[in-house]
Structure formats: C-alpha cells, structure tokens
C-alpha cells in the first residue's frame, strides 16, 4: 500500500499500463507538451514519445473517431476529454460508433477504447463547464461507465478499463483529483459492474458514486461519531453495468436508502437506483427512497450560488435524518438511545 492522490494514482496507472502493453497509447488536447489540463499525463510525453502520447487539435469528434478506428484495429487508446462537457462534441462518435460497432457488425470488431474525462462543478467554471452528464453514456447499451471515488479505485478501475474490450467512459471528478488514499501496489483490476460496500452498517443505505461516494463516506463517518448512527455506504463505482445486486442486498438489510448524485434529480442516475431498489427490495422498504441531487439549474458562476446549487453534506445529513425519522429511528442525541442492535 502506498498513500497517494487520486491524480497520482491515475498517472501511475496510465504509465504502468503503457509499460505493460505497447498497444496502449494516449490522445487528447494539451496532454503532451502541456502535460494535461489537470496534469494526469505529466511526464508521459517525455517518457513515451509523441507516437504514444499524442496532442490533438481541439476537435473532439475527430480524435474520438481516430481512437475508435485504432481500437477496432487492435490498439488500446486512452483518450482524454478535457472535461465531460466537451465530450458532447463527440457524442456521435461515442454513442453511434464506439457503442454500436461490436453489436451492429456481428462481433467482427470490438472497440477497446477508454475515454477519460472529469465531470463535476465547484471550480467556478460556469454552466457549460461544470456538468455531470455521465448519464448520457450510462444510458447507452454497448458502453461501460465507471466512476471511481478513491485513489485505489482510480487505479483498479483504470486497469480494468484499459484491459476491457468494450468502450469505457472513465469518469473522473475535478474535486477528487487532490484527495488522497491508500493504493495497493499490485496491479489488480476491479471487476467493472461491481459496486462496493465501503462502510457496512444497518441503519440506512447511503448510495453514491464519484464525488458523492466520497461525501457519503464522510457524512456516514461524521454521523457515526455525532449520533452513533450505523450507516452503510455503497459506492456504485460502475454506472453501466449497474450492480443492482449489491444495492438491493444492502437495502434489504437496512430497510431505508438515500441516493446521492451530483447530476440533476429528474431522470438522473438516482432515479435508476431508486427504481432498482423498488424492483428488488420493495418488500424490505420501511420508508420511501430519497434522493439528493444538484439544484435543477444551469450551474451558476457565482461561488455562493454554485456552492448552494451543489448537494452539500448538510443536504445529505438532512435527507438521512428525515429518512431515519420516517422509520422511527432516533437520530439525535446519542444519549437518548441508538436503535438497538
């Protein structure tokens, strides 16, 4: 185990995979000479050369298409969309080509492509550069979408994504790059499509992914400390395939769930999770599933308004308290008694 940042874990994994497999190469805007807008690819141009670390024009559709072609012919491209907002310029390539080719052409060619891209707000980048539109890709059969929330998962899921034969959208998050955590030294890929119970508990299931899985872990730890609550945290890690089994299994145990997402509430990832709970754990629910999401607005530029629009720890705590109140748990204070074990 080594303690490192999410950014470092991504960097190191890209590097080790490039060392392991000559077919792995990188493309994207400003990833070479400038070393990446978020410095994930720092030093890699110097180490691997222009052939394997290619700066592209500002032409998302173009380099996405080039990467798809390369992948069809046996290479393993890892392309960087500077932010997920710009990936919309390549929607046709990603959705109509990368996601379709294997199925449409009878399996003659697969597309082992990784699209790395950070989502998320909170950096005062305005409405068009602060979105969480991973849903677009999670919606499409033929795609895989992973969303690590920890440095360890950034590594394990990057290993899995590069070695997977299908196109994988690899969702990073601006707010997570500097977070630190233990990362295993061994190269053990995660299983794409498996969520993880990152904190076992019995009072309520708190479900999140990417930044909100991080928030979920913090809130659960904080409420355990302040109120003695025993909250189970499920980190989805993969949005497609979605690990309904782990979600349902957890809610069957806790009888209540709050789903967190950084995207918008309406038609969001949380809605799919809530529907999965209804399908698989209806008879185990003691209260309706609640969702916490971003305000339904284009992200404001003003720092105050941006902070207000994003789901906060307070919002999450309030939703937990309301849900626990609905199932008859005392949520405060500790002295009055925690639900018996």
């Amino acid at each position, binding site marked *: 185990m080594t303690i490192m940042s999410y950014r470092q874990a991504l960097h190191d994994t890209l590097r080790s995979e490039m060392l392991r497999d000559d077919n792995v190469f990188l493309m994207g805007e400003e990833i070479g000479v400038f070393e990446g807008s978020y410095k994930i690819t720092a030093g890699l141009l110097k180490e691997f050369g222009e052939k394997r670390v290619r700066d592209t024009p500002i032409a998302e559709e173009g380099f996405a298409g080039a990467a798809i072609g390369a992948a069809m012919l046996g290479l393993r491209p890892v392309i960087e969309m500077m932010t997920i907002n710009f990936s919309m310029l390549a929607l046709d390539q990603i959705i109509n080509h990368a996601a379709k080719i294997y199925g449409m052409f009878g399996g003659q060619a697969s597309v082992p492509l990784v699209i790395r891209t950070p989502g998320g707000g909170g950096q005062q980048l305005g409405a068009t550069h602060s979105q969480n539109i991973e849903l677009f890709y999670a919606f499409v059969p033929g795609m895989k979408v992973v969303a690590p929330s920890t440095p360890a998962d950034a590594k394990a899921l990057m290993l899995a994504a590069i070695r997977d034969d299908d196109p994988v959208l690899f969702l990073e998050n601006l707010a997570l790059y500097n977070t630190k955590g233990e990362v295993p030294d061994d190269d053990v890929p*995660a299983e794409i499509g498996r969520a993880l119970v990152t904190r076992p508990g019995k009072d309520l299931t708190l479900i999140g992914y990417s930044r909100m899985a991080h928030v979920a872990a913090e809130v659960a730890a904080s409420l355990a400390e302040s109120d003695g609550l025993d909250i189970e945290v499920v980190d989805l890690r993969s949005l497609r395939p979605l690990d309904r089994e782990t979600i349902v299994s957890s809610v069957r145990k806790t009888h209540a769930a709050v789903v967190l997402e950084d995207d918008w509430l309406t038609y969001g990832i949380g809605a799919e999770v809530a529907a999965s709970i209804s399908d698989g754990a209806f008879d185990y629910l003691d209260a309706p599933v*609640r969702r916490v999401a971003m305000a339904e607005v284009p992200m404001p530029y003003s720092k105050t308004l941006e902070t207000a629009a994003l789901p906060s720890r307070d919002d999450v705590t309030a939703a937990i308290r309301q849900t626990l109140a609905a199932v008859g748990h005392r949520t405060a204070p500790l002295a009055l008694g925690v639900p018996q074990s």
Partner: protein
Amino acid sequence: MIEIKMPRLSDTMEEGAISTWRKQPGDTVAIGDVLVEIETDKAVMEYEAYQAGTLAEILVAEGSNADIGAPIALLDDGASGPAASVPAGSATTALVERTQPALVRNGGPSTVTPAPAGPASAQPSGGANGSSRQIASPLVRKLVRENHLDLSHVTGSGPGGRIIRADIADLLVGGTPAPAATTAAAPAAAAPAVTVPAEPAAPSDAAAVPAAPEADDVRGTRSVPVSQVRRVIARRLSASARDIPHFYVTAVADAQALMDLRATLNAQLTEAGRAKISVNDLLIRACALALREHPDVNVSYGGDESSVTLIHDRINIGVAVAAESGLIVPVIRDADAKTVTQLGAEAKKLVALASERKLTPAQTSGGTFTISNLGMFGVEHFTAIINPPESAILAVGATTREPTVVGDGLEPRYRLRYTLSVDHRVIDGALAAKFLQTLTSLVEHPWMIIA
C-alpha cells in the same frame, strides 16, 4: 384558531387512537357534529365538536395515538389567521430554498425528493365518512404476511401515520435480526477496493426477516398483536391478583325453584310478546338484594395510605362479558332498583354494545360488584379475580340436575354452585359467608328475588 385536544374518555384512559376522522380539513363544523371517532382502551367513541367553525387541519392521522390533552386538530373559528403549515413539509421547503438559487424562474423541482406528505394531506380526499386504508410500509406488509400479524390495533408512527417496522417490533417474536446474519456481509464489505462482494442474496434475506428461533418451530409459535383491551386486562388483573389478598367462599344452592320460576315467567312473557329472562338476570337482582342486605360487601379498600374505607350506597353490578376483543365488564347501575325484566333488557343491550366495542365510559365504570358467569359453558365451579376497586366478585357455574338428598331419598334437582372472591382487607370470612347465605336463600326462594 381552536385546538381540538385528545379528550379523556374514560378513567383508565391514558392515550387515545384516532380511529376515523369524520370531518376533513375544509369541512364546516357545527356544535354537536361528530368530529372524530376515538379508540380508547375500552371502546371506540364518537367525539363531538363543542365549537363551530371550519376544520383547518388534522394533526393526528387516523391510526395514530395521542396523549390526553395533546392537540389532534385545528378548528378555524374565524378568530385568527390561516392554519399553520403542515410540519412535515417545512423542512424540505427550507432545504429547497437553501439549495435552489434565485435564477430558477419556474419554481422548478427541488434537489431532494419531496418529503412524504404531511398527515393531513395523506388522507384520501373522499367522503367524510370514508375510512381510509391502513398505511404500512412494504417491509411491514411483508412481515405481516410472513408472521400472520394483525395490524388492526397497531398505530403508525411514521409520516402520515404510516405503520413502520418499529411499530410492530413488539409483535415480532425475536424480531431483531440474528447478529450472525447481520454481520455476515461485513468482512467482505470492509475488504480492499478490488475485492468483489460476496453473493448478496442469502445473508441479507436472513437479516431482514425476523429471526425465527428454533423454539418457534418447535412450538409452532406465531405472533398476534396485543390490543389496547388486552393490555388493560393484563394490567388491571395483574394488579388485582398481586395486591388484593383474595379468599374464596363457595356455596351450592338448590336451584329447582329458580328454574321453575324462570320457566313459568318465560312462558308468560313469551305469551305477552316480551323478552325472556335468564338465570343470570335473576342472579343480578339476587346479588343486588344481597348487597342491599350486606352493605359492607359493597365497599372499596381505600389503599394502604388511606384512613377510610369507601362504602357505596349505590349498587352497580358489573357483568363480565367475553367479547371478541377480550373481557369487558359493562355495569348496570342501581341494579337493586330495577326489575328482572329491566335488568335482562339492559344486560342484553350492554352485551351487544360490548361485542361491537361501542360501550361508553359511563357504561363500563362505577361498578361496585361483579358477576362472572361461565355456566353456559358447562363449568361446574370456578374462582374469579376481583375487578378493582370493587371488593367482591361472584363466579357462577352451570345450573345442572344432580341427585339431591330430599328427606331420606334422592331426587334429581337443579343445583347451582357459585364462589365469591373477596378482598380480605375489607371483608372477613364471616361476612362473606353471610352474604352467600343470603344469596342462597334468595336463589332457593326465588319469588323473593322478584318481590
């Protein structure tokens, strides 16, 4: 705005459950209109409005409990502003205001799924008398199915009166999940990120279903809810058996004359188109007369701290009724001043009300003596537990034909056995014996009962 409060509807009532709201928010309420039906420990009672106005808000939903004096609804009498908002909604509203910036032009959706509706709006908007479906969480419904529970006496403490698992915890034998099952998933969950969680189905199922201890299988046990009535019976009779030094005096009466008189009376009553009388009706009056003769039996112990014993001048006789919901004792007041046919009619009415759980507090309180008759079940003889604050109870067996010594021979005659349970703190053995002697004399000379 007038607060409607949970009334005290009986002496033993500590809280009441809202059974049915007969008025809904917005309905006009006139003085004397029935606002709500309230379930107490003894009965379901109608509660009438003492003020006129418009029902503004229901604060305690159907199926929910409230302590005596707690507000259960708001009545708008025009004296003040509009009703306060439903509490359940306000937290969410605040949350929305905080997280939703001003540039939302159309009051768009919140960032959090809407909170469950408040108690008032959770009620169906149908007819004023429509009793609503009992709301229970899916988990509760599943547990009810699996454990054959009855929710009819469970009150929901969740939003809008929803019955949640916590409300039925007492009904579930060994209801908490087995520790082993709960922790089974933990080791896998705590493992490093790359570890794949174990197959989920088995341990979670075991954890969610209330543990079925082996004893349950062995005994074939199932759980049924404890009703308010049953709780009161348990509490009061435990206190009686624990606190009152009972002693028992048994006598046997020759009931031939009583049965003959009853047969004669009933033949004539039937001819006259009137209701027949029972042995029990005759016994009620006989006891009332015996109590008149022995007023020291018609008493209540004042308590260890009290310097007085309460002697009751009125003779109010309770008749133990085995209602479906459990034992209940309606009281016939001034039984000594009523004829046997009056007593019979009144007893019949009270028994019917008891089985419908419609007895009023007045009809179940104020007793000074109780008769419990199991004769109709062929019971020869039994002893009863005193119904406090009374000091005596008569347990009556069946009237059966037995070989009886008459002169030097045997003759088949009706015989009736009864046992008086007495509170020795206030009644001594000789007094109890004298009371029974009087009663037996009345039974054996039944014209004295109706004279």
